[in-house]
């Protein structure tokens, strides 16, 4: 590639101010001797100026207000989600505590034996499994109901 051809590759970048110090120096030295490249630099300079003066788009009506509203709504929704998770966790813990308490009471009242359909319900494992299923089912129903209520409230707003 000749010096002239290698310089031509730099012309567009020169208009963008994207040459390093050495490239700029070489291009300036070449342009002093080459009318064609000087002319090209002028043309690229015109493109550079034109690109800095493009027609500017108009901002859509109330874009800022709509964006702010959406941010506030999302922040409220995130706070609701955190609250719901906290409440569900607390309720699950409460349910476990109540279940454990009832297990103690049941063991005392029944003397450790309460067999229904071949299973001793006051065995810790059986009681735990049953309580866990009950707690998770209740939590799932509560989460669905809460979610529906929140969506209805937001639609109403």
């Amino acid at each position, binding site marked *: 590639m000749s010096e002239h051809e290698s310089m031509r*590759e730099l012309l567009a970048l020169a*208009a963008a101010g*994207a040459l390093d110090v050495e490239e700029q120096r070489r291009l300036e030295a070449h342009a002093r001797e080459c009318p064609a490249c000087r002319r090209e630099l002028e043309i690229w300079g015109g493109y550079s100026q*034109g690109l*800095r003066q493009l027609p500017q788009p108009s901002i859509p009506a109330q*874009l800022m207000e709509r964006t702010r509203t959406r941010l506030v709504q999302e922040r409220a929704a995130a706070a609701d989600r955190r609250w719901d998770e906290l409440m569900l966790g607390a309720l699950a813990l409460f349910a476990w505590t109540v279940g454990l308490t009832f297990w103690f009471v049941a063991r005392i009242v029944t003397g450790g034996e309460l067999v229904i359909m071949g299973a001793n319900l006051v065995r810790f494992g059986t009681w735990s499994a049953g309580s866990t299923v009950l707690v998770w089912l209740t939590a799932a129903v509560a989460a669905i109901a809460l979610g529906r209520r929140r969506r209805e409230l937001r639609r109403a707003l």
Partner: protein
Amino acid sequence: MILAATMNPEAFSGAPDAIAGMRRGDPDAFTAMISRYQHRLYRYLLRLVREPAAADDLFQQTWLRVMEKIGRYDAGRNFESWLFSVAHNLAVDSWRGQRGESLDDAGDADESPRGGVGGGLRSGDPDALERLLDFERGAMLAACMHELPAIHREVLTLRFEEDMKLEEIAEMAGITLSTVKSRLRRALEGLREAMDARIPGGG
């Protein structure tokens, strides 16, 4: 949802104050920053996606993502660069799986040398005819830019309208400096080819 009865975004006169406010979740801080950057960010997104409705939606999504990630924003990093990086990534995500637009080099134009003779573009003194010519030139440049691939529109917007340094563009877009220069050169050459196609012949 009831919005704050009084908004006081003027309380956040400086970017560091506003960023601290955003970290606390202060809506006024977000309002101040949205106001500060709305024109530039919207312009960047519109140049990228070309559709006002899509740019509008991406604009809102950008600020939602900023709100979500502001806690992890590194204060040592330029906020503008980070903001535009968020917008860039959302635009990429919005195109994922769609054909046509891409911010990857696979969607780049070819390297064929520029053909045709460039029309002489004049910059001028503020005479009425010159202003008209400048206006028409700007409109035609914008129309030609609209035809370029997204990665070229992006680099031209960031360099010439946002006046970002090449290093900032590289960081924002997650590419190397040499890739930025390469895209910039191809973008300018592609733009000139498009202009030549509209205005054949010499000036």
